[in-house]
């Protein structure tokens, strides 16, 4: 019995964190410093706990919950994403002080739900975990202080999200009807045999819709720019990183269900991938707001990740996992700069980056590397991720798709360069003071930059882990 509980330790730890923040939320007087240090400490321990549990294997709750290397790798990524987002919360000016404990509480429940999501292997468990993570985010978005656009973004997010989850549920009912079971293990055996029938393919596609909403894949992308702009900077950072990683994890698990022999599914994924990349990159060019630009860039990156997933091979899944990790690091680095430059909690215009290389050389350098990583320029981790994804697709012979993706990567270079140009070449209208960057922030920035470059040049260790994780699905 003891053994079974240890399997569930990362989730239990998240639950404990949620209880602590619930207790803090009840205290009468707001105390942001205390909340921040409690959150930082507990999130840091959370990463250690997730790392310690990475080798566990087993099933829980009547086989509805599987702990394997695949899920544990994603849990480590989620715990790291959560920890890094908490690191950005030193000046949480975008949210009223008395709401800080609630902010951490909902971040924690969201992380908990995503950890459960990547481990669930039963349809109802997947649905409940997905809804818990969505509901936490629905509340986090309108928490922003006195802006007016926040509730609007919140209600749009909620309506689109509720629609997507209803569509997903309808798809789940067809999958249940075709396969007569709700366990993913049994569905894997039955579904490839009946994947040719309309009900099965429609069901699986509708289910994927629910997850595509999370990943902001075309045509479920239109919430992304509004929510990115409307939510507080730290919340946006969380939505853009941790929630994307969890979505990649569950999409890989669901696509692996088809067994890799459905032409319709591949065609559909190719179409969505091309549409996401092209639309995201083209619309990003005209953006003036940094967070909106990152939103459209996230839509295009969802397209790149899909290339790895639709290869439907172990290498393809491994490259998608690697890409998700690379995206997590690069995007967090971008948001670190956004949060620090807009330290009063306002939205950051790209023009406001002007003169950043003088105001804070370290942040400017980090932004440049992160943005080059997103564009896929060597020697950053972003280049390695794109290379792996494209190589996996080439192996399956999707040469047209890879060429379109390459063209897209070139288009994206344009607006990424605009950001670097704003930070390095443009001068502000009036002389701005130097940005105060604290020692912990410097350490964090240097660490992120090191990860981006070192794992860009020597990706073997990470790739081995990703491959071992992907092998669990085949």
């Amino acid at each position, binding site marked *: 019995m003891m053994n079974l509980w240890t399997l569930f330790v990362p989730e239990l730890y998240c639950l404990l964190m949620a209880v602590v923040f619930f207790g803090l939320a009840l205290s009468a007087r707001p105390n942001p410093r205390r909340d921040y240090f409690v959150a930082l400490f507990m999130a840091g321990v959370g990463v250690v706990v997730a790392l310690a549990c990475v080798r566990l294997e087993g099933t829980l709750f009547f086989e509805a919950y599987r702990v394997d290397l695949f899920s544990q790798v994603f849990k480590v990524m989620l715990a790291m994403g959560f920890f890094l987002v908490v690191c950005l919360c030193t000046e949480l000016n975008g949210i009223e002080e008395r709401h800080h404990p609630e902010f951490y509480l909902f971040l924690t429940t969201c992380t908990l739900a995503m950890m459960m999501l990547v481990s669930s292997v039963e349809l*109802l468990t997947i*649905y*409940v975990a997905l*809804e818990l993570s969505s*509901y936490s985010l*629905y*509340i986090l978005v*309108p928490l922003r202080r006195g802006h*007016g*656009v926040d*509730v*609007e*973004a*919140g*209600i*749009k997010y*909620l*309506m689109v999200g*509720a*629609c997507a989850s*209803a*569509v997903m*549920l*309808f798809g*789940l*009912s*067809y999958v*249940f*009807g075709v396969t*007569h*079971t*709700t366990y993913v293990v049994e569905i894997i055996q039955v579904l490839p045999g009946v994947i040719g029938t309309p009900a099965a393919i429609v069901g699986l596609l509708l289910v994927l819709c629910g997850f595509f909403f999370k990943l902001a894949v075309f045509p479920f992308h*239109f*919430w*992304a*720019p*509004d929510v990115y*702009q*409307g939510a507080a900077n730290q919340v946006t950072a969380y939505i853009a990183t941790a929630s994307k990683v969890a979505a990649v994890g569950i999409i890989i698990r669901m696509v692996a269900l088809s067994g890799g022999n459905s032409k319709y599914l591949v065609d559909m994924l190719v179409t969505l991938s091309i549409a996401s990349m092209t639309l995201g990159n083209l619309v990003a060019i005209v953006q003036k707001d940094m967070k909106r630009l990152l939103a459209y860039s996230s839509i295009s990156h969802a397209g790149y990740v899909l290339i790895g997933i639709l290869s439907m091979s172990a290498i393809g899944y491994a490259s998608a996992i690697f890409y998700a990790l690379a995206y997590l690091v690069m995007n967090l680095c971008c948001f670190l700069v956004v949060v620090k430059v807009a330290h009063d909690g306002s939205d950051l215009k790209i023009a406001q980056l002007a003169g950043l290389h003088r105001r804070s050389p370290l942040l400017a350098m980090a932004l440049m590397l992160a943005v080059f990583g997103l564009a896929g320029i060597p020697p950053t981790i972003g280049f390695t991720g794109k290379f792996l994804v494209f190589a996996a697709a080439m192996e399956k012979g999707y040469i047209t798709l890879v060429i379109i993706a390459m063209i897209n990567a070139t288009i994206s270079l344009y607006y990424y360069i605009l950001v670097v140009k704003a930070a390095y070449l443009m001068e502000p209208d009036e002389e701005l003071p130097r940005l105060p960057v604290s020692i912990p922030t410097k350490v964090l920035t240097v660490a992120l930059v090191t990860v981006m470059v070192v794992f860009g040049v020597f990706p073997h260790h990470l790739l081995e882990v990703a491959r071992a994780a992907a092998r669990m699905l085949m």
Partner: protein
Amino acid sequence: MNSLYTYLFLAALLFSLGIFGVFQRRSLIGMLIAIELMLTGASINFMAFNRFLAPDPIVGQIYTLFIMGIAAAEAAIALSIIVAVFRRLRSINIERAQELRG
């Protein structure tokens, strides 16, 4: 009446009405009701497949119970945000919420 297809048709009809309602309604409450219709469609599907096809005759009913519970939680969150929208804009018409353009 006692055939699977009757129920599947009914469920698909409810689901389509829900989707139609979400796109056609301008009031946030109306959209919320439309989403509930979609969920009801899914519930009927689960019950029908369960009654006619599944070997274990409980699973579909459990699903429906869970869907009802979760839909209630969703409605609570949605209504609280709608109240916040109303306080800010003095209206729950989605056309008034046009500051952000996706």
